[in-house]
């Protein structure tokens, strides 16, 4: 095997790929744009939608409560609701999003307040609907306030202190460093995107360098040269790996930049006051760990997509083979997103899922060196096997000359 020949093939493939707009989009543009788009774009859109929903004064209906005019008057006076008397079709109106919520005030409610034995108020909503949820939240807030004021008044009437209703408070405080909090928060999603981008970055160069070359007739031209099949595979494979790693690098650089922008915007104004020192961060060492673990994954993906693309005789056929692979890869990736799944010896041997989980741990500042070694080693073995398969396939005449 001649490394100079492999270098020559790699250099040519790199030059060729850098002139291919479609590959540049999948390896550089999408990875660079997707992170800011997700973090800033989706975040901004969500904030805008929620803010708009919060500004709206919700239309709510009151069921019953004819003998409790004071409560209804207070509801109207609060200015937080557009109060209407319930019609017979109030459920349908909530379902059609014409009315956000309804409140049922039982008979004799106001009178019973004075004795401290009022029956339950029932709130009706459209479950998991944003504006309905906000309306119900306001209603709950209103009635909780009414309950607190009633309690205070009843206690005062009996000459008792208001603190009697709440003899002690319950406080909650985080004791874990913010790196761990951030790791736990982002630890699932960051490796998920990195692993997916790792695959995406490898896909187009792999298709172009194998099936694409078969389709264009340039593979036969290359096979006429003195370069051996192994040298050709390795030269091309290195280019596919470069595509995969480039996608990861560009996405990480872009993510870093995006987080800096987010951090800068959070360090000013009301957001900074609200968060104080409690801004979740990511351990930089964790990022280094993720990059190290991604290397064998990139080799594994590159070799797999290279081998699969080799079987196709055209770009279109290669695309139809690789699209299902993307779904197959996403499933183990999602293990890291699921709450409560802990890394064990069995899971440490499941490709992709193991990397997803260990990356989540590393980003949280947890370093299980035994598992890290096992996962790195097993992924490297899978990657080597996939590369050996790709090389074996490239030697098969039926695969190379399939037209």
């Amino acid at each position, binding site marked *: 095997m001649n490394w100079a*020949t492999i270098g*020559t093939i790699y250099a040519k493939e790199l030059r060729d790929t850098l002139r291919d707009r479609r590959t540049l989009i999948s390896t550089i543009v999408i990875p660079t744009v997707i992170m800011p788009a997700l973090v800033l774009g989706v975040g901004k859109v969500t904030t805008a939608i929620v803010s708009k929903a919060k500004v709206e004064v919700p239309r709510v209906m009151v069921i019953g409560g004819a003998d409790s005019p004071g409560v209804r008057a207070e509801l109207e006076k609060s200015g937080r609701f557009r109060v209407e008397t319930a019609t017979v079709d109030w459920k349908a109106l909530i379902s059609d999003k014409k009315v956000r919520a309804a409140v049922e005030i039982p008979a004799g409610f106001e009178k019973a307040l004075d004795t401290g034995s009022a029956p339950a108020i029932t709130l009706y909503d459209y479950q998991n609907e944003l504006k309905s949820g906000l309306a119900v939240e306001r209603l709950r807030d209103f009635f909780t306030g009414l309950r607190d004021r009633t309690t205070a008044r009843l206690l005062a009437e009996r000459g008792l202190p208001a603190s009697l209703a709440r003899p002690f408070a319950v406080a909650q405080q985080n004791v874990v460093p913010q790196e761990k909090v951030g790791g736990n928060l982002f630890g699932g999603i960051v490796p998920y995107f990195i692993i997916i981008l790792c695959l995406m970055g490898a896909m187009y160069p792999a298709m172009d360098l194998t099936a694409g070359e078969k389709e264009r*007739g340039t593979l036969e031209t290359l096979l006429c040269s003195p370069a051996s099949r192994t040298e050709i595979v390795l030269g091309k494979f290195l280019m596919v790996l470069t595509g995969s790693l480039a996608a990861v690098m560009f996405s990480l650089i872009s993510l870093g930049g995006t987080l800096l922008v987010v951090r800068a915007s959070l360090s000013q104004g009301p957001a900074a006051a609200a968060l104080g020192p409690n801004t979740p961060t990511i351990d930089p060492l964790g990022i280094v760990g993720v990059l190290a673990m991604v290397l064998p994954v990139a080799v594994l993906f590159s070799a797999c997509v290279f081998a699969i693309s080799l079987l196709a005789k055209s770009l279109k056929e290669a695309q139809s083979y690789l699209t299902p692979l993307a779904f197959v890869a996403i499933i183990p990736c999602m293990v890291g997103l699921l709450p409560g799944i802990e890394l064990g010896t069995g899971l440490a041997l499941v490709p992709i899922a193991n990397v997803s989980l260990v990356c989540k741990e590393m980003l949280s500042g947890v370093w299980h060196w035994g598992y890290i070694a096992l996962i790195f080693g097993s992924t490297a073995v899978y990657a080597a096997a996939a590369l050996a398969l790709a090389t074996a396939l490239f030697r098969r005449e039926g695969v190379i000359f399939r037209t």
Partner: protein
Amino acid sequence: MVEATLLTKVFHDGTKGEIRGADAVSFRVEAGRIYGLLGANGAGKTTTLRLLATLLKPTSGTAVVAGHDIVREPGKVRANVGFLAASTALYARLTAREVIAYFGRLNGLDGAPLRARIAALADELEMHDFLDRRCEKLSTGMKQKTSIARTIVHDPQVMIFDEPTLGLDVMTARTIIGFVRECRARGKTVIYSTHVMGEAEKLCDVVGVIHGGALRAEGTVAELKAMTGESDLEECFIRIVAPGVPR
């Protein structure tokens, strides 16, 4: 020199079963001669030439190309062969110069000798006007010149042409034919496959008629005509590959 000995290639097809792409093909071509492989589509021309260029491995038999055995020393064979076929395309996103340089490097050339070789080829083939233009922007004629330069950048002893004029217009085809004659004049061993009788008649010193993967007859055009008693090469070809077909 090229010498094929009982060169055989068997393909296995799921529906058609065993296909003999090349069936005990034996022939010998000396330096400075053009050997024509004449056959219809699917006769086994491409398979035979791919075996000689080591793109395929023979099922049995072998060949010696420029002093190297195709089974034992495939890399050395390829280093001494220039293979030009209708199916060997150019890299669209590279310039003509980059394509020639790439194949020069794969053949061990580099630096000043490679630059000098590219300049010499550009002079010879009149390529200077488009040498730095991407192949996707070249006309068919320019592409053919680039392909020729790519094929001979390493100055191979043996030239293999697999239906190189297929689908080309008359003017571009003439460039190729002229180049094939030039190769003979320079003392190279040339193997030329075609299904065009006129090309075989004009170019080849010896013609091998191939059909069903096997070499059915061999000789100069005059010898083949004498053998079949026909004055027209096309009729002669039909008599050899399908003796039962009426005139």
